[in-house]
């Protein structure tokens, strides 16, 4: 990059100078050695992921990068958009390390992804901090010498667009909600409907497969699941946890039943008084 233009990652200096340094190095290599650029970006992503994990779930710190990213996603610490960008850098970085040739447009896209992710990263390591990095400016490269290089460059760009579209389509197919949907409103609507169904079951009687039986079966299966090596509870702990969850559900049902009975009693009393008042007035 030219000496006049500063690094896109300069804003990071204040928050994490190692990550900022890697970003600046990646910029320097993007045109001359795109594989090295991706290697630096991958390292940058790994450093960010490890720092996040140290802050939020240290027990995961010994895992490898892919497992750390997946765990951060699972625990809701890594939003989808940032996760996609980090996985893309990880994948392309690994390919570059293993000798795959990297087109410059691919490296440039990953550089742009890294810039976006690093702003989010700052707000994560300094909770509540509003970071406003300047807009990403692609590091200037040598002027394209001939039509052939220009055509190759454009073809690589088009291919990158196709890959991005493919990834987006796959994600849209997999996720529960569309990106355009107002998820909190939808969640609120569904929960209200579920509460409505719960009240119907309460008033009209349990359906064919009653809820208490469902809770028992779920607790039994949950106990077995909690013993799974991924969750790592021993037999006693798993049993205790499953029983605790079942008891909580059962207590909830009983409380709801009591409240419903009280509500009915209050309603009956009200009607009784109404009848008495009417009777008194008529006489």
């Amino acid at each position: 990059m030219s000496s006049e233009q500063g690094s896109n990652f300069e804003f990071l200096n204040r928050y994490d100078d190692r990550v900022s340094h890697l970003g600046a190095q990646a910029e320097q290599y993007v045109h001359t050695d795109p594989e090295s650029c991706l290697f630096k970006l991958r390292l940058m992503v790994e450093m960010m992921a490890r720092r996040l994990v140290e802050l939020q779930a240290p027990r995961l710190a010994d895992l490898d990068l892919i497992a750390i990213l997946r765990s951060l996603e699972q625990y809701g610490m890594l939003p989808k958009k940032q996760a996609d960008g980090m996985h893309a850098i990880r994948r392309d970085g690994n390919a570059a390390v293993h000798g795959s040739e990297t087109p410059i447009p691919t490296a440039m896209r990953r550089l742009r992804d890294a810039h976006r992710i690093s702003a989010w990263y700052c707000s994560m390591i300094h909770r509540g901090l509003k970071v406003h990095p300047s807009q990403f400016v692609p590091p200037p490269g040598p002027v394209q010498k001939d039509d052939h290089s220009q055509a190759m460059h454009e073809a690589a760009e088009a291919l990158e667009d196709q890959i991005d579209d493919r990834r987006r389509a796959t994600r849209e197919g997999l996720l529960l909600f569309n990106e355009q949907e107002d998820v909190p409103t939808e969640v609120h609507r569904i929960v209200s409907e579920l509460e409505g169904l719960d009240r119907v079951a309460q008033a009209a009687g349990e359906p064919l497969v009653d809820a208490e039986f469902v809770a028992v079966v779920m607790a039994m299966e949950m106990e077995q699941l909690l013993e799974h090596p991924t969750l790592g509870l021993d037999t006693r702990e798993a049993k205790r946890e499953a029983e605790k969850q079942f008891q909580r559900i059962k207590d909830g049902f009983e409380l709801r039943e009591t409240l419903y009975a009280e509500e009915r009693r209050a309603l009956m009393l009200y009607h009784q008084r109404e009848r008495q008042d009417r009777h008194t007035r008529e006489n």
Partner: protein
Amino acid sequence: MSETTVAMNEQEQLATLWFIAARAMAVADGTVPAVKEASAGLYAQAILGLSEETCRVAKSPESIGNLTLVDCLAGVHALPRELAEKIMTGVMMIAFADGHMEPLEVRWASMLASACEMTDEDFQRCCASARVIASMFNPTAPQVEGEE
């Protein structure tokens, strides 16, 4: 041809039913946990045999926008038994994904199993399969967040 092989528009209907049923179970505790979100699409494609495109169409506002949980219960009731059981299994897999159960999850499971006219044994069988699949999807332990 398997009796579960259905025409394209029926595939979309199946996908729509699946996503409503799956959403209800996934958000019954008022949140959208990532672990539950991704497994819904994987199950649709790997077990229900729905294509990526069908899954996308099923979630479009025209397909899913005006449907309620009661519509979903009616739709599941009308499905062939084999498909209804697959939906029930998938929904229970989502319930098990975070190693935690909530009252509204229990209610939705009870409603759905009843709409499928399941016997207690059918429901237990679906739950056992669901637990096995959930364990393959790298489930999360309850109360991990916030640990030091």
